[in-house]
């Protein structure tokens, strides 16, 4: 799922300076799962904003709403009534959701309440870790299911580097050395030959380096 973190409160307050009526719009997708932008978080942020503005003597009116997702036109459509009613929509969706909303509602500023950070999953509830860099050419076959691009700080394809210490990355003792993990796994899967073969230079065109990407299902085009 896509993981994000709520922006610092002061930053959000600054975005709303001079604005009197807003909607705080949550998303029922990834950000609900990672406890950052779902209905609960909409209520918490709205309460905080009302309190902070009351304290200033400059109250703000907030409509609280959560959509199933903000990255699908059929759901984005459902915000129409509310969109014409407010000065600003503060979206708690990931960057993708904010942009789809902005594209659809051209007359209302859509502001991001989150900093979208990475693609990953839960180690356990409330603890999310990065796993995928969306490079567009998955190498997990060669590396025992552990991604060298996302999890190695240098994205080495023929690691480990000389900074690997006791299974941890040189940049941070809490970050696992991806190549240590890969080697351990390849060993247990009896696939060490996949290490000895040199992994060729990556074609970064499938990554964001090649420009913004798209994916099309031909059978769904009418």
């Amino acid at each position, binding site marked *: 799922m896509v993981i994000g973190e709520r922006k610092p409160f002061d930053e959000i307050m600054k975005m709303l300076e001079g604005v009197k009526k807003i909607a705080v719009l949550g998303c029922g997708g990834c950000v609900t799962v990672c406890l950052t932008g779902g209905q*609960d978080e909409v209520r918490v942020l709205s*309460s*905080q904003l*009302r309190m902070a503005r*009351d304290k200033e003597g400059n109250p703000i009116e907030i409509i609280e709403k959560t959509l199933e997702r903000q990255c699908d036109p059929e759901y984005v459509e459902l915000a129409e009534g509310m969109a014409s009613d407010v000065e600003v929509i503060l979206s708690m969706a990931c960057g993708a959701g904010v942009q789809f909303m902005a594209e659809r509602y051209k007359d209302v500023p859509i502001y991001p309440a989150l900093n979208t950070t990475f693609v990953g999953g839960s180690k356990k509830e409330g603890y999310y870790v990065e796993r995928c860099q969306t490079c567009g050419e998955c190498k997990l076959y060669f590396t025992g299911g552990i991604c060298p691009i996302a999890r190695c700080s240098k994205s080495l394809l023929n690691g480990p580097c000389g900074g690997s210490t006791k299974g941890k990355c040189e940049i941070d003792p809490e970050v696992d050395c991806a190549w240590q993990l890969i080697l351990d796994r390849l060993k247990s899967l009896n696939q060490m030959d996949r290490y000895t073969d040199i992994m060729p230079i990556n074609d970064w065109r499938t990554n964001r380096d090649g420009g913004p990407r798209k994916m099309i299902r031909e059978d769904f085009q009418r």
Partner: protein
Amino acid sequence: MPEFEPIVVAFCCHYCAYGAADLAGSMRLEYPTNIRIIRLPCTGKVTPIFLLRAFEKGADGVYVAGCLEGDCHFIQGNLVAKPRVNYTKKLIQEVGLEPERLEMFNMSAAMGPRFAEVAREFVERIKQLGPSPLNKKFHIQSDAA
């Protein structure tokens, strides 16, 4: 100008804190009338929004009272509540309220005197902090005086 009498909301779990409150009552122990008790089945039911709403509606102080750690009637409810209360302290700090306005306490149903003591001490703490900037009643009163 009337003296500041804080409004304190206490979220109490049915099995321990509320029981202690009952006992304090039967023992005729005195504790401040500022406390408004809200009874929950377990402090595990508390999520940040409960506590934020209390402050939003003008509470000067809020506390959560549950069973002693290790003795929660629902096994882990009070353990789940604790980090939520700590997190909410940060949330109210972001808004500009002092984190000391929010607290969590643990007690058993047999601890009537402790319930009264917590109530007294917390109300005193809030008196020192002064009214919450969101306490409209007090601010309206003081304007009228």
